Every structure is written in C-alpha cells, then in structure tokens.
C-alpha cells in the first residue's frame, strides 16, 4: 500500500500530514516542538522513517531533532541526560545542537567577515540551520545549510556536526551579503550520479558547486544578472532563492532567483533566463515534476517589496517545455484577496502517478494537487506560517 507523508515546518512547530496513495483524506499530527521555529525537516531517502528536523529559537538557539519512526517520536541525538558532556580526558562530546565553524589549521578556514547591509564588514556568526539534506546512500549522513552561510555535515546521525569549511573559506566570503532573511545557505542538492558533486545556494552570494565532496568550491553564477548589486554580472553577490533538479538529469538545474527564473544545462557553468510568459519573475519556490524532467513549477510573487501573489490571485505556474512558456494553474486556489507568500523550501513533489505537487503558504495553508497541478485542494489550512514542505512517497 503506497502512501504519502508531508513534512511541514512552520513558525510555531512541525506537522506531519499522512495519506494513502489516493491523497484524498489526510491525517494531521502535531505540533511537534510547539512554539519553536521549524525551518526545515526532511527524511532519509534510504530509510524513510529516519527524519531530521531543524528546531530554532531567537531565545534558545539551534536544536537538531531526529526521528526513527517517521515523526511519531523525536529525540535529540546528542548525549543522553545524566551522561557526562565531556570525555574522561576532558574533551567535550559532540552535542547535536553544536555548530561551530571549523577554523582549525588542518581542516578549517579562518573566520572572516562578510558584507553587512550597509556595505561595512560584519562578523561571521552562527544563527540557525535553514536546510537539512539527508544523504542519498547513508541515513546517518546529513548535510546542514546554516546562517551565517556555511555547510555542515554529520556522519553519526546528527550527534555531531563538522563544517565543510572550503565553502566559507572559498575567498569571496567578504563580498557575500545577507538577503532580507539573513546570510543563509538554504539549498543543498546532492548529485545522484556523482557522489562527489554537491550544489548549494546562498542568499545573497549565489550558487556554488563542489566536485570533490566539499573540499573545494567554485561559484557557478555566469549568466545571472542582478541589478541591485554594483556589478550586475559579478562572480558572487546574487540573491539566489532556490534551485531544483530532476534526479535523472543532475546537470540540468532550474533556479528561482530574487528576480528571474533561470536554467542551466551544464551543471551551473552557465545560466539563461526562462522567465518567459510569467506575470512576475520574482518568487521563492521552484520544483520539477517527478516523471517529466522538463515540467517545472513556480509561484510568482509580485515583487521584492510586496511579498504576495500578483493581483491577489494565488497561481502556480507550470511549464511543460523546460521554461519560457508558462500556464497558470488556478483550480482550487484562491483567485481573489489572497496575500500570502510561498517561501523557498515550501514546495515539493511526490513520485506517485500522477505526480503530486504540494506547497505551503505563510497563511498556514498546505495545498496539494494529486494530478500534477491541474486541481488543488487545501489539505490543512490553519497552521502557523509555513516555512518548509517536504514530501515522502512511501511504499
């Protein structure tokens, strides 16, 4: 019996929505971690019952939670209560909520400054985990994208985290500046055909790629044009909002930039615009149909100063031709007086036939389409503001 599990991160907790393969009736569990901000939660492709969640608070900092049973129960994968937090030799044990930039001589990079909003330099400070990306092959390995921008990795199921410092120390760091949400590494794509290749995206630095499993990185922003930076074609400084990939074609990438929807057919080496007939090419979310690598979804947002749909009409736009030609998908979505936003990690697809498409809004609705976007229905509608949506197709 197939089923679907939708993992929803909100401003005030996490929710797990489940349904059978028909995707008609939904069970809602939660809030998990009530009252905390849940930027993201995601399941392991290898072991779907292994989930990782990023729980954070402006008061109490960053917590990593892990579930072994598909989200029914959760634990912090650090030292158990009552156990000493240091070894007999005095070395601190790794705690699951400990994210420390690696400045060691052997594997680290010096902690530099980054550009602040006013152009001055600002200290690099850890704030929170934006995105968790479990490994494609090992449930104990997971990557974490953090603010201020950095990439961390655990290989012990989330108990300890180590920075892949080559990204932060790439050399252009002092030119990176925060987007409106902060200097955040929000997108991590693992190449299913090349275990050493990882793509990440940072607001507002741009997209980067490693071909050696994270030791060294190169900016992949050629072709991006950003009018809001001094050199619109600069190597870094672009506010990339999200990148999507179809697993069958990992060299083909689709990007929702601050403004502009972009496409690369050469693993990010070059980009070209595919905004075409969109009513606005500003937005956050972008995703690819599970079975049609040329079918894309975006949710146009009016502008960077008006974070809601154009004309108050919530419309998903679908391109069946890899971009340029877009059609509005409106059936079941509010077509008047709708002023919600859809954030960058708040859209996902299932792999059933027909492909299911899901997205969450800052108004607390999670909409689903069980027919690739033709018809939509809210599967839950009064949650706190939705920050992330991930989908697991269960067999």
């Amino acid at each position, binding site marked *: 019996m197939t089923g679907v599990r939708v993992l929803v991160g909100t401003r005030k907790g996490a929710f797990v929505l489940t349904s059978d393969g028909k995707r008609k009736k939904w069970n809602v569990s939660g809030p998990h971690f009530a*009252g*905390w901000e849940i930027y993201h939660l995601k399941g392991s492709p290898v072991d779907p019952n292994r989930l990782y969640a990023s729980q954070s*608070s*402006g*008061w*109490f*900092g*960053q*917590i990593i939670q892990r579930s072994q049973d598909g989200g029914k129960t959760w634990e*912090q994968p*650090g*030292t*158990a*209560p*009552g*156990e*000493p*937090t240091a070894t007999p030799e005095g070395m601190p*044990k790794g*705690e699951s*909520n*400990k994210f*420390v930039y690696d400045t060691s001589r052997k594997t680290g990079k010096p902690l530099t400054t980054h550009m602040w909003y006013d152009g001055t330099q600002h200290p690099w400070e850890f704030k929170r985990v934006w995105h968790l990306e479990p490994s494609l092959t090992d449930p104990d390995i997971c990557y974490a994208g953090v603010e201020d921008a950095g990439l961390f990795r655990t290989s012990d199921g989330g108990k300890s985290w180590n920075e892949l410092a080559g990204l932060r120390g790439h050399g252009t760091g002092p030119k990176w500046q925060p987007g409106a949400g902060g200097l955040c590494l929000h997108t991590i794509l693992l190449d299913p055909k090349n275990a050493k290749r990882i793509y990440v995206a940072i607001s507002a630095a741009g997209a980067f790629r490693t071909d050696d499993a994270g030791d060294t990185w190169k900016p992949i922003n050629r072709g991006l044009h950003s009018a809001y930076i001094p050199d619109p074609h600069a190597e870094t400084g672009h506010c990339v909002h999200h990148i999507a990939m179809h697993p069958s074609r990992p060299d083909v990438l689709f990007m929702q930039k601050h403004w502009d929807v972009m496409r690369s057919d050469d693993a990010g080496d070059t980009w070209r615009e595919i905004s075409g007939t969109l009513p606005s090419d500003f937005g956050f979310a972008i995703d690819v149909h599970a079975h049609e690598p040329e079918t894309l979804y975006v949710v146009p947002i009016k502008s960077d100063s008006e974070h809601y749909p154009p004309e108050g009409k919530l419309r998903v736009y679908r391109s069946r031709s890899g971009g340029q030609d877009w059609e509005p998908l409106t059936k079941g979505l509010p077509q008047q007086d709708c002023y919600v936003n859809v954030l960058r990690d708040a859209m996902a697809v299932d792999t059933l036939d027909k492909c299911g498409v899901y997205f969450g809004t800052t108004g607390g609705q999670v909409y689903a389409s069980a027919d690739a976007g033709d018809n939509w229905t809210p599967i839950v509608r009064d949650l706190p503001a939705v920050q992330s949506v991930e989908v697991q197709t269960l067999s």
Partner: protein
Amino acid sequence: MKQGLIRVILPTHLRRLALVAGEVQIAVDGQITQRSVLDALEAQYPNLCGTIRDHGTKKRRPFVRFFACNQDLSLEPPDAPLPEAVKTGAEPYMVVGAIAGG
C-alpha cells in the same frame, strides 16, 4: 565540598527539551556561582548545552536572563557568589526568556 541541592526554574521550552515538568534540583560542587550552577545544569541535562549560554564562549545568550531573590543577575559576573537563599535552596535560580510581555 558538596553543597546542598540548588533549585533551578527553567522556561517552558527548555523544560520540554530537558524532559522535566517542574523545577529541577542540581547538585553543585564547590562555590555556588552562576557559572557553577549552569555547568552542573548542562552536565545533568546535556540537551541544554548551547541553549542558555553560547557553546564556545559560555556567554549568556542575548535573549536569556537570570533572576534570583527578586534581583536581576543577568549582568553580574558569572563567578560572583549567588545569594545565600539560593545556596540554601530557600529560593530558586531562574533562567528566563527575555521580554516580559506581548
């Protein structure tokens, strides 16, 4: 020298993380200071590491405050002795999320 148990009141979110219901009681060795109480608290509840004080610097997180005996101890030196009533367990040491109201 082993002292008596120190009573600590945690905010709701941290009680949930520590899996405790009411106030907690902490055995503290040596001088009873904010640092020694928080060290002992983190040793007893490792899940709280990093939530009250920064992992590396051990400085108080900006939106956390410390109260005891109707005093705000947030800006006091971490190695200053805590009030006698806290040492004897007559009064609790309180970890508070900053911002008093909505």
